[in-house]
C-alpha cells in the first residue's frame, strides 16, 4: 500500500486531518495504482468543506484485510480526468459524482445519468434520454419497463437484438430515487435510522448494520459483543430467507413449480424467525447505533434451533429436487455467463462474483463485529452461469444454517446496547457488511463541529447491474427473466 493513503480496518474511523490530501493528478494515479495491485473500489464521494471540495476514495485490499483511504483536492473548476477510462469499476461512482455532486470526470467513456435526481437535472426519465442503439439490417429494439408485469420495483431495460440474440442491453434506473443519502446526512436521528432501514427493504439488517457501524466508529462507541452476535444472527437469517426465495423464483421461472412453492414457503419460515426475534419479518427495529433493541431469549433460541432442524431437512429435500432435475439443469447451465475477468473489471460483488470465481466475501476478507470470531469461508464456483449463481446460494444456505446451529447455543452474554454517544468532529468512517446480495457499504465524514459533511451508501447492486447487462450479451432475450432473477438486484438500493 502506498504512503499516500491511510490504511483502515472495516468499521473504524480516522481523523480526516491525518489523511494526506493529494492534488488530483497524484490522487488519481495512486488510486489507479491501488486498483492495479488488486484493490476494489468500494466507495467514492465528495465532501464539501470550508477549504474546498475533497474527493474520498475507499479501495479494499481483500488479501490484506484493509481498506485504503485516499483524498484528493478538487479544484474550483470541479473537473478531473475520469478514473473509469482506466478502471471500469468506477463507472457508477463517477456518474453519481457528475449528476449529484456537479463534478465532471472528464473522458468518462459513458457519462450518463445514474438516477436522474430530478432536482438537479430537471429531467424526467426516459423521455429526454437517448438510449444506445445498434444499427444494421434486422436489428430490432425491445423496451421493457419501468412498470413490469409482476409485483416488482420499476426500472427500464432496452435490448438491441438480432433475432433472439441480445447484442446489447442497456439498463436505465433511477425511478426509485428517493433521496435517501440526503436524509441520512441531514435528518434527525430517529428518521436517519428508519431511512437506513428502507434503502433496500429486503436487506434491512445489512444496511442498518453498516449504518450503525459507521455511527459507532464516528462516536467511538464500545458496542457489546452480544449485540454484534445478534446482528450476525439476523444477517444470516436475512441471507437464508432471500436465498431460499431466490431459488424458488429461479425454479418458478423455468416452470418447476414444486420447488418454487416449497422454497417460497420456506422463505416465509425464515422471515417468521426474524419476526419472533424483533417483531418484524424484515428485521426492522432490531439494529440501532450502539447495539440492538431486542434480545434472543432462551425460548426463542430453543424454538429457532428446533425449527432449523425441520427447515434444514425440507431445504435439503427441495434443493435435491431442484438440482436433481435434468430439465432444470438444462435451463440453468450455460445461461447468462458472466466471465471472471468481466466480473473483476466491473467490481462485481456477492454471490454473483463468487459464482464467477471471484472469492470475495466481506465476512472472510474484512471481518467486523461477530465475524471476527466466527469463520465463514467464501463459497465459489467457476462457471459464471445461472447454475453457478443458484448453486452458490445453496452452498451459502447450508453454511448459514451451520452458522446458526453452531453459534446460537453459545452467544456471548452481556448488554444489548450502549448509548451511541456523539460523533467526534473531523472524522471519516467506513463499514462493509456482506449482505445476502453482497458487499453493502456505508461511509460518512464529520465536519469540525461533529455534524455530517458527507454520507455515502453503496448497495451491492451499484456494481452488479452492469454485470447483468454483460451477462446478457450474446444470450437469448427469452433468457432474460431467468438471468435477471439469478442476479436479483435491488432497484431501490441502486437508486437510493
Amino acid at each position, binding site marked *: 500500500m502506498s504512503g499516500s493513503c491511510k490504511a483502515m480496518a472495516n468499521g473504524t474511523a480516522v481523523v480526516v486531518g491525518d489523511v494526506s490530501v493529494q492534488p488530483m493528478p497524484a490522487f488519481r494515479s495512486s488510486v489507479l495504482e491501488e486498483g492495479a495491485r488488486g484493490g476494489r473500489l468500494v466507495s467514492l464521494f465528495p465532501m464539501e468543506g470550508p477549504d474546498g471540495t475533497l474527493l474520498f476514495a475507499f479501495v479494499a485490499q481483500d488479501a490484506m484485510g484493509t481498506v485504503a483511504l485516499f483524498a484528493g483536492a478538487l479544484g474550483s473548476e470541479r473537473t478531473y480526468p475520469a478514473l473509469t477510462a482506466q478502471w471500469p469499476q468506477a463507472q457508477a461512482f463517477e456518474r453519481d459524482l457528475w449528476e449529484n455532486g456537479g463534478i465532471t470526470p472528464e473522458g468518462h467513456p459513458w457519462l450518463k445519468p445514474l*438516477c436522474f*435526481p*430530478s*432536482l438537479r437535472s430537471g429531467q*424526467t*426519465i426516459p423521455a429526454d434520454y437517448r438510449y444506445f442503439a445498434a444499427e444494421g439490417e434486422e436489428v430490432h429494439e425491445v423496451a421493457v419497463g*419501468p*412498470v413490469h*408485469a*409482476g*409485483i*416488482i*420495483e*420499476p426500472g427500464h431495460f432496452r435490448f438491441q437484438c438480432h433475432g433472439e440474440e441480445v447484442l446489447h442491453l442497456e439498463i436505465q434506473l433511477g*425511478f*426509485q*430515487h*428517493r*433521496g*435517501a443519502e*440526503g*436524509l441520512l446526512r441531514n435528518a*434527525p436521528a*430517529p*428518521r436517519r435510522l*428508519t*431511512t437506513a*432501514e*428502507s*434503502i*433496500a*427493504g*429486503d436487506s*434491512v439488517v445489512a444496511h442498518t448494520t453498516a449504518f450503525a457501524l459507521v455511527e459507532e466508529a464516528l462516536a467511538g462507541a464500545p458496542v457489546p459483543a452480544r449485540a454484534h452476535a445478534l446482528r450476525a444472527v439476523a444477517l444470516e437469517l436475512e441471507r437464508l430467507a432471500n436465498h431460499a426465495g431466490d431459488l424458488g423464483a429461479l425454479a418458478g421461472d423455468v416452470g418447476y413449480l*414444486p420447488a418454487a*412453492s416449497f422454497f*417460497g*414457503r420456506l422463505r*416465509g419460515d425464515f422471515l417468521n424467525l426474524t*419476526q*419472533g*426475534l*424483533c*417483531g*418484524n*419479518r*424484515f428485521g*426492522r*427495529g432490531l439494529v440501532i447505533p450502539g447495539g440492538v*433493541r*431486542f434480545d434472543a431469549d432462551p425460548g426463542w433460541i430453543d424454538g429457532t434451533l428446533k425449527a432449523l432442524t425441520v427447515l434444514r*431437512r*425440507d431445504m435439503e*429435500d*427441495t434443493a*435435491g*429436487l431442484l438440482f436433481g432435475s435434468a430439465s432444470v439443469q438444462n435451463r440453468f447451465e450455460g445461461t447468462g455467463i458472466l466471465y471472471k475477468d468481466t466480473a473483476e473489471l466491473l467490481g462485481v460483488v456477492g454471490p454473483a462474483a463468487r459464482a464467477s470465481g471471484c472469492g470475495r466475501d466481506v465476512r472472510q476478507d474484512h471481518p467486523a463485529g461477530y465475524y471476527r470470531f466466527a469463520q465463514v469461508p467464501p463459497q465459489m464456483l467457476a462457471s459464471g452461469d445461472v447454475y453457478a449463481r443458484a448453486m452458490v446460494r445453496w452452498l451459502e444456505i447450508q453454511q448459514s444454517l451451520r452458522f446458526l446451529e453452531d453459534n446460537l447455543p453459545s452467544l456471548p452474554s452481556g448488554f444489548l446496547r450502549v448509548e451511541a454517544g456523539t460523533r467526534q468532529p473531523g472524522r471519516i468512517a467506513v463499514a462493509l457488511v456482506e449482505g445476502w446480495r453482497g458487499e453493502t457499504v456505508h461511509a460518512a465524514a464529520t465536519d469540525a463541529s461533529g455534524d455530517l459533511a458527507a454520507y455515502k451508501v453503496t448497495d451491492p447492486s451499484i456494481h452488479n447491474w452492469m454485470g447483468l447487462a454483460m451477462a446478457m450479451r450474446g444470450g437469448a432475450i427469452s433468457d432474460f427473466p431467468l438471468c435477471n432473477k439469478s442476479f436479483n438486484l*435491488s*432497484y*431501490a438500493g441502486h437508486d437510493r
Partner: protein
Amino acid sequence: MIDLLRARLRQGYRTQPFPPATNPLPERFRGLPVISSGPCAESCQTCMEACPTGAITTDGGVKLDLGKCLFCSACAEACPEGKILFSQDYALASTSREALVLNGEGIRPKVEALQGEMKRLFGRSLKLRQVSAGGCNGCEADLNVLSTVGFDLGRFGIQFVASPRHADGIVVTGPVTRNMASALRATYDAIPAPKLVILVGACALSGGTFAGSPAVAGMPTDIPVDLYIPGCPPHPLTILDGLLRLLGRLGK
C-alpha cells in the same frame, strides 16, 4: 418423481385458513397501538421527539396517525408513563383516512365494505395491478407473499395481473418518487373505470420515512383512494384482512 412425491407428502398442506383461528403473531409483533386515555404530564413531548415521521401530536392528549406510523415502537419505548402500547392486532386497514388518526378515545381504523354496483362487480373477482413507485421492496415482498401457498390469495378470487387494462384496481406502494410520477399516472389512466385505488404501506399513505424528500412527489391528491393499508411494511395478514373486508367477505 418418487422424491418429488415424498417431499410433497413430508411438507404437507400449507395453506393457512383465513381468518386464522388464533392470532399466529408473536409477542413482539407490533400491530394496532393502544393509547391510554387521559392527559399526559404537562409539556411532555417525549414520544413526539422519538418519532421518526411526526406521526404523533400531543396537544390535547396523544394522537397517533397510523398513516404515518412505521410501527417502530420508539414512542412506546420513550414514554415515561407507558401510555402507548403495541398490540398483536393486525387489522389496520381503513377506508377512511381520518379513522387512522388514533387517540385515547376508541377511534380505530374502519373498513366500509363496497356496496351496490361496486360490490356486484368486484365482490367475487378482483384483479389488481400493482405499481411500485419508490417502494423499497418490503411492501412488494409482502404483497408477493399473498400469492404463495401459505396465503393463496387466488382462493378468494383476488389476483394480481400483468396489464392495467385487465385490472379492476391499482395497488400503490412507495412514496411516489418524482421519477415514477408519470408512469404511475399512465398506469392509473389505463385501468378501465370504475376502478379501486389501494395504498399499501406508510410510504404510499404519507411518504413514510421519505416524506418531504425533494426527490419525492407524493401520491397525487386528485386520485381518490378506496383503501389505506398502514404498516412498514404491512404484514401479509394485514393486507389480506383489509382486502377481504373491503370486498365484504369478512363478517363484522
